[in-house]
């Protein structure tokens, strides 16, 4: 469900602005704190949780030193609020059905750590297999640390896959990965390519182990950064595809249940609840001179200046028309379909784009605009290979990932993972027909 659309709402408010109970609650909240003489003991006024008015709020219990609305709630209400957002996202988008095997991508960062906590909690009664899988993007962490963190997660019976990205190659993975990355000269291109390869490896693990859903811990803050950086890279057309709750472009559909949670809240929860995690955000965002780092600094600056900025960015981008694959596809399970339709009606979800895009970029899987698709169809393809890989890619990948000099192209192409090549060929031969 889209985040609250009422003006500058409290960060993380996910309810519809039309919801009368929200208005009443808000006015209660504010009247309760601002009108004089209503609360008998005015000294306590500032110490009590805004929501339940029973417990001491976080600010007064001395555990947090941050300003803002979070600190006016007590721990239980704060956690409850976060968990509520998670549950609502899952329910209203029918993300996870009872028959699903869910793979949680775990980067040991606060967001995915919370996801790992919430998923079993939500399903604790049902019989499920929840596994955690990690991608080795961050060589700074010892595997030992990771294992100890995961082993502390209850219930203890979980499969834990630790898989390096170079496993996307069938053989000689490490060297080929290195060559591929070295062939990319643009720093931003390199960072983005790594992300695409990461998704490839997650999809591969999910497929090989029979998982039916892939869960990412992407939070509001990360999505806000993606909105701005995609805009900066000229990806305005495909941007909506990446930022919805559900992304069913992939063989194993990807779900984002923490979409409405801010990184600040998730960090806070890990801190207060003693959830082991590592501050990965800083590692990734620090001194990168590329576009992604610049955008991250910009957004965090804006967020400091106005705590509802990240929400506003995601909400605005949420108004762009999503694609048909941004909802859970109709499956053989009639119960799921029914639940899906029921929830769409209940939550008044927008109808999505019905015409599927003509084609997708083999590297980043973004849908191509009609004109980009037409350009790539035009003749002039490489005779030897029957197709030209570069021509099938989106303009952004062509600019920042593919090599510029014709002499380097073959070298680059030789290190491409098989999956990219397959996608490109399918596209190319499909077009020629």
């Amino acid at each position, binding site marked *: 469900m889209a985040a609250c659309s009422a003006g500058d709402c409290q960060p993380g408010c996910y309810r519809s602005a039309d919801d009368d109970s929200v208005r009443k609650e808000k006015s209660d909240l*504010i009247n309760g704190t601002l009108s004089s003489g209503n609360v008998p003991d005015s000294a306590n006024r500032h110490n009590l949780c805004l929501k339940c008015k029973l417990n001491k709020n976080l600010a007064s219990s001395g555990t947090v030193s941050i300003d803002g609305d979070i600190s006016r709630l007590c721990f239980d209400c704060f956690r409850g609020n976060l968990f509520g957002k998670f549950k609502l996202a899952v329910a209203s988008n029918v993300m996870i059905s009872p028959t699903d095997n869910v793979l949680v991508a775990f980067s040991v960062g606060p967001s995915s750590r919370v996801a790992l906590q919430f998923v079993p909690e939500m399903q604790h009664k049902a019989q499920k297999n929840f596994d955690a899988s990690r991608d080795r993007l961050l060589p700074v962490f010892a595997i030992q640390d990771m294992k100890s963190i995961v082993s502390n997660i209850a219930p203890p019976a979980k499969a834990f896959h630790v898989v390096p990205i170079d496993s996307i190659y069938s053989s000689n993975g490490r060297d080929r990965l290195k060559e591929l990355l070295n062939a990319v000269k643009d720093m931003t291109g390199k960072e983005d390519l790594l992300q695409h390869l990461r998704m490839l490896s997650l999809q591969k693990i999910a497929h090989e182990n029979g998982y039916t859903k892939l869960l990412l811990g992407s939070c509001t803050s990360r999505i806000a950064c993606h909105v701005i950086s995609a805009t*900066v890279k*000229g990806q305005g*057309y495909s941007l909506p595809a990446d930022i919805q709750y559900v992304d069913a472009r992939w063989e194993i559909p990807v779900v984002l249940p923490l979409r409405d949670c801010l990184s600040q809240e998730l960090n806070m929860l890990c801190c207060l609840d003693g959830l082991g995690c590592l501050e990965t955000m800083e590692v990734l965002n620090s001194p990168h001179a590329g576009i992604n780092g*610049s955008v991250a600094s910009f957004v965090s600056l804006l967020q400091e200046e106005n705590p509802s900025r990240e929400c506003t*960015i995601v909400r*605005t981008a949420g108004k*762009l028309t999503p694609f048909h694959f941004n909802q859970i596809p109709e499956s053989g399970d009639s119960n799921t379909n029914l639940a899906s339709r029921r929830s769409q009606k209940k939550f008044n979800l927008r109808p999505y784009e019905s015409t599927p895009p003509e084609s997708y970029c083999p590297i980043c899987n973004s849908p191509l605009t009609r004109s980009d698709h037409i350009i790539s169809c035009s003749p002039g393809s490489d005779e030897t290979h029957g197709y030209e890989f570069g021509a099938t890619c989106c303009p952004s990948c062509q600019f920042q990932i593919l090599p510029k000099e014709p002499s380097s192209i073959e070298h680059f192409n030789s290190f491409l993972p098989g999956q990219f090549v397959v996608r490109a060929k399918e596209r190319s031969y499909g077009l020629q027909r």
Partner: protein
Amino acid sequence: MAEVEVKPKKAGPLQCSICSQRRAALKRPKTLEQICRECFYAVFEEEIHRVIVDNQLFKPGERIAIGASGGKDSTVLAYVLSELNHRHNYGLDLFLLSVDEGITGYRDDSLETVKRNEIQYGLPLKVVSYKDLYGWTMDEIVKMIGLKNNCTFCGVFRRQNVSDCLLSNLPSSALDRGAAMLKVDKLATGHNADDIAETVLLNILRGDIARLSRCTSIITGEDGPIPRCKPFKYTYEKEIVIECIYSPNAYRGFAREFIKDLERIRPRAILDIITSGENFRISTSAKMPEQGTCERCGYISSQDGKGSDFSRILDSPSPSDIDFLPSFSHPLKDQKWCKACVLLEGLNRGLPKLGIGRTRGLNNGLEKDTEQSNGVKKIQSKQCSPRFGYMVTLTISSEFLNLRDMNLVENEDSGGIRMNISIGLGLCLLGDGKNSPLKLANFEQV
């Protein structure tokens, strides 16, 4: 964007990469090519010509007003349009249109520049003034609302929508009205690629989806009386600066700083942002409804090409005031006025925040008479609705009349009215709900 060919290194200075004859004098900001001055001007002007032709901006015989602010963008625009009109026989009837806001000392320089443009390029100049259009000069408006570094109205992206700003609405509205008076077919403005990229980002940040869907259009307002076009849509600001010896210090917001950083990392990012903006797909239901004629000035509004519903503006709460929203009926509630008229009316009533969604508790009968007698300005209000039931008479000497903001806030507990005047020399006026005289109390500046 074509990548620069790597040429074999020669001894001596670099040759222009276009003509290979003259010495390269500069690196072109958009493409990083090393080129000579002559080729720069040539390629600069040729690109504008292509934009005009490819987007069919003009038709032969049309009367085109060039929005002339005296700044670098409009100066270069005037030059380039008149040059291309001649060179490529567009057959256009070109005018310079300038707006005199009536700011003592400031506009004088800009107007001088525009007058010079008139002579240099042989384009007739028409100046319209705020005083003629609205009855207020900017000086008078500013005196009324006051001005700090952070504009009281705008709050610079913090709380309020800049589209509510009087200072940003009047200029574009004035340009429209001037153009209408001149009976032109189109208005050309000097918005450049940096401006548009910045606008795309700002609209995302502010959550203004309606504007986001329109801001990359090279022609806007086609359904209104005066369509506008932006021939410089793909022109980098840096290149305009090179074209022109003037570069007054334009507004530099944080978004513009960010765009400068991006440009350093990847020059084409500016154009990529515009491309993204063009490719955003926004469902029509998300767009602003309501197009109509303003009932006050009879004009189909401003740049948006759409009028605004007065009551909608009045009722839309600003975030911090959501709790103060009373249910009352304002006399103007059902009338449809354009944004400029709404804001001006507020000014006329001495309620500068009218129409920005922060005034509350406006009474049915509240009227204001301002008289200037013996240097004293009086603001009187008459008997109000039973809800408030009080009569307020304020007599404030003009020295104190630094009213920046007047909010009427109903305090339900005390049953009275507390009128806050924030910023500036604060005067706190207390009424107690009955016909008793007001108490004037000073409070410290908030």
